[in-house]
């Protein structure tokens, strides 16, 4: 080995330093290499996708789905496919559940996945002490027994959506032996899963680097390395993709999306996703007046908003079910009709001279154009005789107000439902006993109540459609639009959009 004296070493160092400074980043961010760099729109607070508030944050499911596998997989069109379970179901009288665990799957540390891992994960999810935000969903099944690769369990209270949850939030299988050995802190430091990519390096608020899992049961992934850069500021994400520092980014302003997707070397895709922009209506004055509720709905030109404000990126809707959802009913229409709105209002004694007044709450910057959209709506309302005062809140305050039933008469929120089941959309949003509902009235409860545990699937879906129709007629909620997710990527890549909004690296490949 050649020995360098100190001066030579420093000289070499300085050269490396300068070249590192000038060319360092150019050398490492090329898309041609087998590295995929995603400028991501959210931070990853925790690697445990089954506990704590971050577990139910839809924005980071893409990362969880890369490292871990769900009990049941979900395709980009929201249909289900085998995950770590190859088959599943109820017995005939729906008192028992059964699941077949995939064999031949290994954890990232090389140890095999066993049915014990699955049972442990299910039981852990159902234990409120672990901090699973939807523990009571998981607690609806229990008393598991293992026979070979088959797990059988008792249904404690029938929940028709339990298997859908297995492909949804907190539905991840964690390694029992490893987790018990290293503990929560150790797991956060170096998490292992069965997923397509393996943990490599993590810097909070900055980046996460993953390596390909060569033993993945679904085949070796397309990239050797995947980097998630956590860039929460939309304009900064635009800069990331525009400067070529990142290969893919998402949730950029629509104007920028339109500009950049036409740019040389970049491409874009904008699929509708399971995110619904809506106005909660609270059962307080003046919303107790049906005329006001319906007038407020009829006065909104949703198509105009989507076209002009969102540059066409959005799907106007009149129910809480998006077209991809099981209980979507295309016949439910409310319609833009300012004349009718004026009539309805005048029937209740209101006019532009003597407008009905209430407050509308909205987030600002949580979703693209949320605040602008509310401004536009308030402008439309002003023309028919509704004088609404805008109040901006942040999402934490929204949750607090919603839980204590103190939302303003109208409140903007964005409802995500990646499994597309009516219970997790209309159900939780409109049932008075749910802490998430704003409109609380007995007539809706009477309709919804029996559907929670309806074992007959066809009857269940039909029931929910009826609920949605009734709600639309009564104007208990104002659904606005289904969001689309603008994704920008280098044109050397191919991106399969995901309706659930999770931009998983497995859906990206070299073209």
């Amino acid at each position, binding site marked *: 080995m050649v020995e360098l004296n100190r001066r030579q070493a420093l000289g070499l160092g300085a050269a490396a*330093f300068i070249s590192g400074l000038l060319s*360092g980043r150019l050398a490492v961010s090329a898309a041609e290499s087998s590295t995929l760099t995603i400028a991501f729109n959210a931070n990853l607070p925790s690697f445990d996708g089954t506990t704590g508030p971050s577990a139910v944050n839809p924005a980071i499911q893409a990362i969880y789905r890369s490292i871990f596998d769900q009990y049941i997989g979900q395709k980009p069109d929201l249909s289900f496919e085998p995950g770590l379970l190859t088959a599943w179901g109820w017995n005939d009288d729906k008192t028992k559940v059964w699941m077949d665990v995939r064999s031949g799957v290994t954890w990232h540390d090389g140890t095999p996945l066993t049915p014990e891992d699955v049972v442990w994960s299910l039981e852990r999810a159902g234990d409120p002490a672990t901090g699973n935000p939807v523990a009571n969903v998981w607690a609806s099944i229990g008393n598991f027994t293992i026979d070979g690769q088959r797990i059988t369990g008792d249904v404690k209270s029938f929940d028709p959506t339990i298997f859908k949850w297995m492909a949804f939030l907190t539905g991840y299988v964690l390694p029992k032996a490893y987790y018990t050995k290293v503990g929560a802190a150790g797991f*956060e430091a170096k998490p292992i899963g069965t997923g397509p990519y393996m943990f490599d390096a993590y810097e*909070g*608020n900055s980046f996460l680097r993953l390596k390909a899992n060569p033993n993945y049961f679904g085949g070796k992934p397309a990239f050797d390395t995947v980097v998630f850069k956590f860039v929460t500021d939309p304009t900064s994400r635009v800069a*990331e993709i525009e400067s070529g520092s990142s290969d893919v980014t998402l949730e950029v302003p629509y104007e920028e999306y339109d500009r950049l997707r036409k740019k040389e070397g970049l491409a874009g895709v904008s699929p509708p996703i399971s995110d619904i922009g809506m106005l909660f209506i609270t059962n307080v004055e003046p919303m107790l007046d049906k005329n006001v509720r319906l007038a407020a709905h009829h006065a909104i030109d949703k198509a105009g908003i989507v076209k002009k404000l969102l540059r066409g990126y959005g799907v106007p809707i009149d129910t809480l079910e998006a077209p991809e959802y099981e209980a979507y009913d295309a016949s439910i229409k409310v319609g833009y009709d300012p004349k009718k709105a004026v009539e309805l209002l005048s029937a209740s004694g209101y006019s532009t001279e003597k407008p009905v007044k209430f407050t509308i709450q909205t987030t600002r910057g949580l979703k693209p154009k949320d605040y602008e959209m509310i401004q536009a709506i308030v402008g439309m309302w002003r023309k028919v005789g509704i004088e609404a005062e805008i109040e901006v809140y*942040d999402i*934490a305050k929204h949750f607090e107000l919603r839980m204590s039933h103190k939302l303003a008469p109208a409140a903007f929120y964005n409802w995500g439902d990646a499994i597309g089941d009516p219970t997790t959309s209309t159900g939780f949003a409109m049932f008075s006993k749910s802490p998430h509902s704003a409109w609380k009235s007995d007539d809706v409860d009477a309709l919804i109540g029996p559907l929670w545990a309806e074992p007959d699937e066809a009857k269940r879906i039909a029931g929910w459609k009826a609920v949605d129709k009734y709600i639309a007629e009564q104007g208990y909620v104002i659904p606005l639009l289904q969001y689309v997710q603008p994704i920008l990527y280098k044109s050397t890549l191919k991106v399969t959009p995901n309706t659930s909004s999770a931009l998983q690296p497995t859906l990206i490949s070299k073209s």
Partner: protein
Amino acid sequence: MTLTSVFNRLAMAVLTLLGVGLVVFVLLRVVPGDPVAMMISPSATPADIAALRAHYGLDLPLAEQFFLWLRDLLHLDFGTSISLRRGVLQLIGERLPATLELTFAALVFGILAGGIVAVAGVLLRRTPLEAVMDFVNGLFLAVPDFVWALALVLLVGVLWPIFPLSGRLDPALSTDFYTPFYLLESLARFNWTDVGDVLAHLVMPTLALGLPLAAVIARTLKEALGEAMVQDYVLLARLKGMSETRLVLQEALRNAVGPTLTLTGVQFTFMIGGTVIVERIFAYPGIGNMAIDAVINRDLPLIQGIVLVFGALFIVINIAVDLIADRLNPRQLHG
């Protein structure tokens, strides 16, 4: 400063921190947006919610919560973050060094740039250039740091992309750092590739934070230098045949630097506050970035911890500034 006065100041610092703790504690308890509200399940019952609340100790009377928090603080237990579910002290320990490196880089930049501009301004007295420099400096004083950040993203990030836009380190670098002080550590290891990378990532946030600081320093220092330049000892030195540059640097600077230093101390703490937004824009993994997440998530223990650390930093910096000012002023050193 004598030993007793240092001791007195430390005692005062503890008292101040206690006050900071009390204020932030009370403030946070009246913040709407209950952390529990954000994590309850769709079908949770009131009993479930109460249980969660009890789990985080939010059901106790305020005074008791405060007392418990203080008691834990004495054991260096800052509590556990609700959103990140890890020890607050540990989290801050990981993030604070990034912010410290950034703010010190910005401080060094601010002092150098501001100092050079001030000296140049004094040398160019009564020339048209002075008016131009004063005007530009006045403009810079009116531009807040986040606007710089935005402008830099656009200019250096996109139009002329030479510096990385986000983060603290290129994710492709596979160096394992033993400490969270990346810059210091890579310097100590003579790992120049890493030093270059860390510095390249520092450039833009440093500029955004440092430019307003530089403007403030430039103006204050120039004023003080101008005052010092008309002193008798400068006249005498000029009569000894010293060049103007030397007059400014050797004769005036040390006597003028006092008020600038005190002000820099105050501005430095403003700058640490400024990291909250600038780190956000550059996705820089510092404590300011974490602070916004903490506020959004109403992560009470984390916010408390961060504010307390900010407060402690403020106090430490101001004691340090006073000590340096004493060092630079021989009158107090020997007086």
